[in-house]
């Protein structure tokens, strides 16, 4: 760690960095930033930077009035914003209470705590997200996509093309490796896949990624959005995440000769996800809008199922490539790009671990396209739906000890209150749908 430390200090001097942004994330997954001068950095490393926690969403009440943001030097990067001279660096922070103990309302901490629990069981969690987003002409009024391309289309002179190139350059510049990038199914929709990394780094990377994508879009005069469902008639933006657990340097999900080479651990992990899926959907899909993507049909997974290469299932088991035992993994397809990645990964991991601890039995796989089944068929096959709305999701979450214990009572409580309010505000609306359909008739 001190090497990181040295590196930070050296880089500040060598690259003429005049500001350091200390980043942390509020409970809803919004990035928060405090800028400090390099001179203050030593103090920040030693003691943290004080701030008024009650001003931050979810860092509620008196405990948090005085909080400390303590930068994690292993996350130091120089921000590659074009034309910024002198440059700016950034680090993610852990949030501490004045007595130095980690704050229970820090979502980064929630993930760290859950990862520590996995470590006690001998597991490390690796994730690989595929982040989808839209590029629009601007962020106001009726959304207009920047192009009319489709899946994997090469769009000539497309803004998207330039955009992806520049975004990827910037991502690589801050040390985030990009696996894959392409035009997605809908007009203006793009996907960038981040490389496999441990879950905490991935979550940090997602936070950085969202910021960079928005910055690059601004530079190019367009608007990037991670809103789960922008166009009613086009697919929404998900964040399919490939997950695997490692025991030391061995992939715990792999077992030679087992069906799909999936070990018992993997099957129990999946069973945990399915068993608790309804309870944690409010976390992985946290906005009213999220449910329009989930229930939008097509490749969106609205049911608690798993399948081999089944793109309508909540969990997809990708094709096993011979000789690639290390890459055995499961893909969770419910998450959307607008979740708080720390909390989302924490609940996924907790549910999976629970499945392992309790030895849950994995239900049979679903080979059909779940959407093409009738309700009756689904019922007969024991396929349960995910919550249909944020309201249902919060109600399900409210009774979940698993989610409460994973998030900690404080975040759990704040999250529920906040989501209920969001639902109430949403319900308060009179929508264009009602006006168009009902006003002429009633």
């Amino acid at each position, binding site marked *: *760690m*001190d*090497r990181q*430390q*040295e590196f930070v200090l050296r880089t500040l001097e060598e690259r003429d960095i005049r500001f350091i942004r200390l980043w942390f994330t509020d409970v809803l997954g919004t990035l928060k930033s405090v800028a400090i001068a390099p001179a203050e950095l030593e103090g920040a*490393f*030693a*003691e943290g930077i004080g701030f008024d926690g009650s001003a931050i969403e979810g860092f509620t*009440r*008196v*405990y948090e009035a005085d909080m400390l943001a303590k930068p994690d030097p292993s996350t130091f990067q120089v921000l590659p914003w074009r034309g910024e001279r002198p440059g700016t660096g950034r680090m993610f922070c852990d949030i501490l*209470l*004045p*007595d*130095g*103990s980690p704050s*229970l309302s820090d979502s980064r901490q929630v993930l760290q705590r859950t990862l520590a629990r996995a470590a006690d069981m001998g597991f490390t969690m690796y994730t690989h997200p595929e982040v989808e987003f839209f590029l629009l002409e601007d962020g106001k009024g009726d959304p207009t996509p920047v192009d009319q391309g489709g899946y994997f289309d090469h769009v000539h002179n497309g803004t998207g093309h330039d955009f992806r190139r520049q975004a990827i350059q910037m991502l690589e510049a801050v040390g985030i490796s990009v696996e894959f990038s392409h035009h997605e199914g809908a007009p203006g929709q793009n996907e960038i896949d981040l490389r496999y990394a441990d879950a905490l780094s991935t979550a940090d990377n997602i936070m950085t990624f969202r910021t960079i994508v928005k910055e690059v879009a601004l530079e190019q005069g367009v608007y990037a959005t991670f809103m789960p469902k922008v166009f009613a008639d086009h697919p929404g933006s998900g964040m399919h995440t490939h997950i695997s657990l490692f025991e030391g340097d061995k992939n715990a999900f792999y077992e030679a000769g087992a069906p799909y080479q999936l070990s018992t651990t993997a099957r129990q992990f999946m069973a945990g996800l399915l068993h608790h899926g309804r309870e944690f959907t409010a976390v992985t899909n946290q906005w009213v809008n999220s449910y329009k993507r989930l229930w939008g049909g097509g490749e969106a997974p609205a049911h608690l199922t798993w399948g081999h290469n089944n793109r309508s299932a909540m969990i997809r088991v990708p094709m096993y490539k011979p000789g690639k035992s290390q890459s055995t993994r499961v893909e969770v397809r419910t998450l959307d790009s607008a979740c708080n990645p720390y909390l989302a990964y924490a609940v996924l991991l907790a549910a999976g671990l629970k499945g392992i601890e309790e030895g849950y039995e994995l239900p049979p796989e679903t080979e059909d396209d779940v959407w093409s089944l009738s309700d009756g068929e689904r019922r007969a096959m024991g396929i349960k739906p995910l919550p249909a709305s944020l309201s249902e999701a919060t*109600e399900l979450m409210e*009774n979940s*000890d698993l989610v*409460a*214990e994973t998030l*900690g*009572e*404080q975040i759990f*409580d704040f999250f529920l209150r906040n989501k209920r309010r969001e639902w109430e505000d949403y319900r308060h609306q009179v929508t264009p749908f009602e006006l168009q359909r009902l006003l002429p008739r009633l």
Partner: protein
Amino acid sequence: MALRPSSAPARLVRLGFIESERAERLLRDPQILALGVTESGSADALTDALAETADPDLALVTLVRLLEAAEADPEADVSGLRAALCGDPISRDRLVGLLGASSALGDHLVTHPRHWRAVVDARWLSTRERIEALVAAVTGRDPATADPTPDDALRVAYRQQMVGIVALDVTAPDPVALLPTVAAALADLAQAALEAATTLAIAEIGDADQYRFAVIGMGKSGGRELNYVSDVDVIFVAEPAEGADEESALATATKVASRMMQACSASTPAGSLWPVDAALRPEGKQGPLVRTVASHRHYYERWAKTWEFQALLKARPMAGDADLGRAYLQAVQPMVWEAASREHFVEDVQAMRRRVEEHVPSAEAKRQLKLGPGGLRDVEFSVQLLQLVHGRSDETLRSRTTLEALTALAAGGYVGRDDAAVLDKAYRLLRTLEHRIQLHRMRRTHLMPTATGDLRRLGRALGYRADPATEVARRRESEAREVRQIHEKLFYRPLLASVARLTPGEARLSPEAARSRLAALGFADPAGAMRHLEALTSGLSRTAAIQRQILPVLLGWFAEEAAPDDGLLAFRQVSDALGSTPWYLKMLRDEGRAAEILSRSLAQSWLVSNLLVATPTAAQILGEPHGLEPKPRAQILQRMRAAATRKEDPDEAIAAARGTRRRELFRIGVADLQDGLGLARVGEALTDVAAALVQTGLEVATRAAETRLGEPLGIDLLVVGMGRFGGGELGYSSDLDVLFVHRAHAGVDEATAQARATEVITELRRLLGTPGADPPVGLDADLRPEGKAGPITRSLESYRTYYERWSATWEAQALLRATPVAGDEQLAADFLELIDPVRWPADGIDETQLREVRRLKARMEAERMPRGADRKTHFKLGQGGLSDVEWTIQLLQLQHAHEIPGLRTTSTLGALQAATATGLVTSDDAQALREAWELASETRNAGMLFRGRPVDSVPADVRTADAVGRIVGLPAGSGQELANLYRRKARHARQVVDRLFYGDVERN
């Protein structure tokens, strides 16, 4: 020649052999006889020498094996060995002494018989000599022969030196005195092995010109006080050679370090030396194995925790590049001495102390030499802590070795000279025992043996002969007792010496040093604490003399609780008040438990402190047998009455009764804190005290009214307890909810009766509500018919009319917990007869009433919550809080008490139990309700105990939450955890309430 008849079994037994027949046979073994032939009489001398060893049987049998092996090994010089055994007594004693002490090293000699010379020729080698010998063993080999491997050669050469050390150790006239020398020699030998292993590794890995590499010893090897068998703690440091690339240099150095560790710890045919443990390095096992000096320094500057500095105190270059080792030390050592001024030093130290004292598996506790309070590690930790605190300003304290540091601390006055001497002696003894136990099988163990044979060997090794097993156990007990008082001796007694001169002519702690020590021990205001100590101990009075004796112990107890400063202050106030009262001094001096209870309670609870300061004589109960058992209500009433009767004036009478109340509250508070009285019994006891006081108050007020009237009142009065009072579930901060009932005697008209009853009750409320030294008692009659708008008291008939005509469901609900607590008994019986049909309605309640109860509760939730209160953590009105649980149970009572007799109780948990037993509530639901209700009640009580003021929700302030958490039984430092725990229990309860009380109404 043949052995004389005197070596018959009986004589052998007398000499200390156990298996005398086998011994006799072995003594006639040709190998032994071969010795006898050489020189007349030597066989007897040999028998005597064997008898002097720790285990004569073992020594003899191994000797025969050794002689056989030596005979078979042409290079072993068996004739020289025989000569040594028959000639020089020193050589003989060393050989048999070793064989009798260690079966493992005996086996080694049998395997390598030629090493007998190392035993015979043993002397204290210099560090240099040891290193040269071991390095030669790994380098001076003929490269053509692959056998033995260098690793094996290292092991053999190591043991060869080891047997020399053992030979000197076991033949020492006073092994306890020799301990530091032995421990230093063992550390030197370890150092030599590290050096040899490093040499070996560097030679194997190559590229020696690319890097510099050094091994830093930590822990006991760094302190040059090693055990016979122990992990060797190290840290590695490396630098690229000039012009070399840092990254590849470090990579190579890491290989060297790994190979070097393996050379020491791997098990080969020749065994293994010891595990080399590099976990004390920066970032522990996660961190890189090898770092540069700068990298080490940066880590300690930025990241290191307090315990890491404490570990660095022992750091000593042990192998590899000596200049590099020195550079490392120069870089990091200054930081050790600044550690005490770091933020969180105090908290860290307390956490570290807890870790040291953390309980050892109870089966082992009695046998542990190392762990647990008063174990060897406790001595070492305590000495190091004092070094960190005082070594900053006093360089004489900076020794790496425990015993040297202890001597230096005594010389500087930081520790009393006598105390240091006692601890020094105890530490040596315990270490010697540890050494002897390990020596037998060369195993790492810190447990006293249990088998008689093992104990006997241990006792004999220390020179006990008559009954070695018992004697050694007794000796160990007595030394362990000394060590158990270590904190008193090392930490606290010198503080007293600093303010009051105890032993003339001895150096003493300076005031600055005393203040920094108090701060390190957890006192927030050291200067204030010093003033209190001075006041408590100065002067020539008997009180001061006794307090000088006991305060070191008391300070330790204060320091272990949440508020040491408050505890000390309260103790001073109590002592000032009680002064030289004989029973007080006697109690403190003689009744250890009483003094401990007193000090801990004062430092835990502001409420208890305050009660005691107001009524110092209450301390007496701590010395009474059964003093911490709550008294029955009748007895309390008797005392209050007696106290009140002695005063004419009503105010004085009540003041006297409230004195009794303070005393009883003190008793309950202390019993709650120290004896774990439990929520239910605390509730009962507090209810008894309150009821007795109300009864006394009623009598005083009646007497006053009658005096004024000049005639009897002509009415009966009754006070009915409601709410928690009626349920017998009072907390420390509960108000008393009551109803007042009166009945006119024949010939007294209603209006007069009403007026007189009102007068008495008004006077009663005034008397009890007067602020005083104990918390005033508010009598809250808001639950009466018509609430605040109704008359304060009603006649029984008026209640009857009211309940027949007007009663609302909430009133029936309130009556569920009505219990007469004071006043006329007949009236009480009649009142109960009147209300029973109201509170347990014959057919339960109907839908309208059910809706009414639910609505009222919902409105209460919305309206009664105080501004700014947290809906989730408010004990009384929060979700899943007390009123949630109570209303749920009361609703069941209203609905079902007519059919389930068990529900006809005023006790919340009693009714819940009855509801569970009859299946109205599942046991899971009941558990959720009970746990939330209990935790809310307990935490509220704990808050009142700690702060002396009511605490309405889970404390938000971390310090208060920590203190309250400790009282409800969480480990120290769980402030945040308390909030998390409470929220979880309350959430579970609320889910049950939503179902059972609100009927699972869907949220929309």
